[in-house]
């Protein structure tokens, strides 16, 4: 879609301003029902679009993403723009700097329509845990869009953005992409700089694209990836690749692994979609091979220890001191008392009590517990050791196959309210996605055959830093199944 729009821009068939206005019209028409956006940046978007149009009018060359409007998850900083991570504690936070991905996209001339809704601090799988209001799934507004990047996935699905950025710590790009019927890519850990992403779990977080097609996701990845030596020590050296150039659609002879342990536990619908996908890959000339990931079943409990430990540390900064909500300026009838003359400790306690949502507090407390004196070895250290075993599982598997095929989530989008009461039920949404974060490998979600009327995503996982094979196989599936 990006390439087509790019062609139209340079041929003069449309202008970037016109295109951007069209998307704002869509937002105006649809977003009252979808609630994909928390903040719109219309002025900034149109100013950028005008610049691109002026360049085109002068006959200057413009890049693929230049002048194409997209949406940014609200945990990624854009200088001068409100950035809340969908939390009340950051309700009034105006980012004083650009995230590296934003800096790169600005340099490439991309247009930002606004900031998208999410589960608070990216903790959730449904976008129901936003401190503002839930986002609805554009495919069925009685259902959740998935999460935590639910606003980004819904915006792309509802044509309220051409492309979007999300972040993925345990599946937060891929599961909403699956639920909304779009494409979502979690790059290899270190592929994209995390500078300017509000940290959730630093050893797992990655920024990645959500888009209408695999090719669009590849274009966005080309724009945002690369080393960021001065800001993110875990960012990897840049390959300088343009990933869209690797999409030949030819996957003859590639080996795709099917995980025995996963297939056994799928429900009938998921099994059917998976079997069709397997057939389709076979028909394209791929070799399908059954593999074992014996430690994969531990990925989710490992995740809940490591993630919550890192969360408890990363979110300690939200204490009402340097920025964000300090409790005295919070006026709400929910407060059962308003203390006067709070001391410093009470400022911390109450700013966090009223500023943070229940799920965020639950995870901070879980992490505080597992890191606390006497429990560190039993929980955190043990989880890190089992993490090594999961990584070895993948090293072994990638000795036998090039890619691994699984569903994205156990089922299609569930109803709003269906899983909010039981945190464990919600956590199980991540069962197929979280292993890629634990192992640090790249993984992509793309639409398989629908289950009833609902989209159902298929996941491919690839070798460390081999995004091109991953994208090419997903692209091959897309062009052969549409």
């Amino acid at each position, binding site marked *: 879609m990006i390439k087509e729009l790019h062609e139209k821009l340079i041929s003069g068939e449309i202008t970037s301003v016109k295109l951007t206005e069209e998307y704002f019209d869509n937002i105006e028409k649809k977003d009252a029902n979808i609630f994909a956006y928390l903040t719109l940046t219309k002025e900034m978007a149109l100013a950028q679009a005008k610049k691109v149009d002026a360049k085109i009018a002068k006959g200057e060359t413009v890049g693929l993403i230049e002048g194409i409007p997209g949406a940014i998850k609200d945990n990624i900083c854009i*200088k*001068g723009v409100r950035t809340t991570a969908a939390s009340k504690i950051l309700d009034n*936070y*105006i980012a*004083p*700097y650009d995230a590296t991905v934003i800096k790169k996209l600005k340099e490439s001339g991309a247009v930002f329509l606004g900031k998208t809704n999410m589960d608070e601090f990216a903790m959730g799988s449904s976008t129901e845990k936003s401190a503002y209001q839930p986002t609805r799934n554009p495919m069925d507004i009685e259902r959740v869009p998935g999460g935590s990047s639910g606003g980004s996935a819904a915006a792309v699905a509802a044509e309220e953005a051409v492309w979007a950025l999300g972040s993925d710590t345990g599946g937060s790009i891929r599961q909403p992409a699956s639920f909304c019927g779009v494409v979502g890519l979690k790059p290899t*850990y*270190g592929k994209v700089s995390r500078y300017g992403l509000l940290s959730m779990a*630093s*050893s797992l977080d990655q920024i990645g694209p959500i888009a209408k097609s695999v090719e669009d996701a590849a274009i966005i990845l080309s724009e945002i990836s690369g080393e960021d*030596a001065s800001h993110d*020590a*875990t960012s*990897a050296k840049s390959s300088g690749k343009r990933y869209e150039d690797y999409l030949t659609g030819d996957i003859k002879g590639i080996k795709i692994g099917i995980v025995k342990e996963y297939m056994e536990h799928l429900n009938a619908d998921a099994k059917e979609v998976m079997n069709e996908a397997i057939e389709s890959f076979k028909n394209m000339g791929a070799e399908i091979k059954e593999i074992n990931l014996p430690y994969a079943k*531990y990925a989710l*409990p*490992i995740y*809940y*220890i490591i993630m919550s430990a890192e969360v*408890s540390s990363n979110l300690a900064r939200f204490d*009402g*001191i*340097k*920025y*964000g*909500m*300090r409790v005295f*300026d919070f006026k709400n009838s929910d407060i*059962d008392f308003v203390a006067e003359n709070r*001391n*410093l*400790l*009470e*400022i*911390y*306690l109450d700013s*966090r009590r009223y500023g*943070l949502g*229940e799920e965020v*507090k*639950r995870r*901070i*407390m*879980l992490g*505080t*517990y597992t890191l606390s004196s006497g429990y560190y070895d039993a*929980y955190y250290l*043990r*989880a*890190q*050791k*089992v*993490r*090594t075993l999961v*990584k070895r599982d993948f090293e072994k598997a990638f000795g036998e196959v090039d890619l691994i095929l699984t569903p994205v989530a156990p089922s299609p989008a569930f109803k709003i309210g269906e899983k909010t009461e039981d*945190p*464990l039920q919600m*956590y199980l949404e991540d069962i197929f996605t979280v292993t890629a974060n634990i192992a*640090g490998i790249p993984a992509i979600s793309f639409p398989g055959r629908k289950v009833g009327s609902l989209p159902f995503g298929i996941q491919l996982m690839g070798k*460390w830093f081999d995004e091109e094979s991953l994208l090419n196989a997903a692209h091959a599936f897309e062009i052969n199944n549409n």
Partner: protein
Amino acid sequence: MISRDETKHIAGLARIGVSEKDIDKFSQDLSVILDWIKQLEEVNVEDVEPTAHISGVMNILREDNVKEFLNRDEIIKLFPEEKDGYDKVKSVL
């Protein structure tokens, strides 16, 4: 099972104010989650090295050069309470 006292203690360490009702809810939730996490105990981790993060890089260093930050005013504007360009806080001692 995480007791109410333990939950209160954890909330204190995490600097999160909690009501009596919160304590009950969090005790219950944390207990359920920790029970579920316990399945990791069945894994033999003898002689297995821990993985802190996946890229394996260590000690990436750069020069600690002083750079002027050009957006000072925007940071000051974010202070919850400002006085003469300083962030005003409650007395620490």
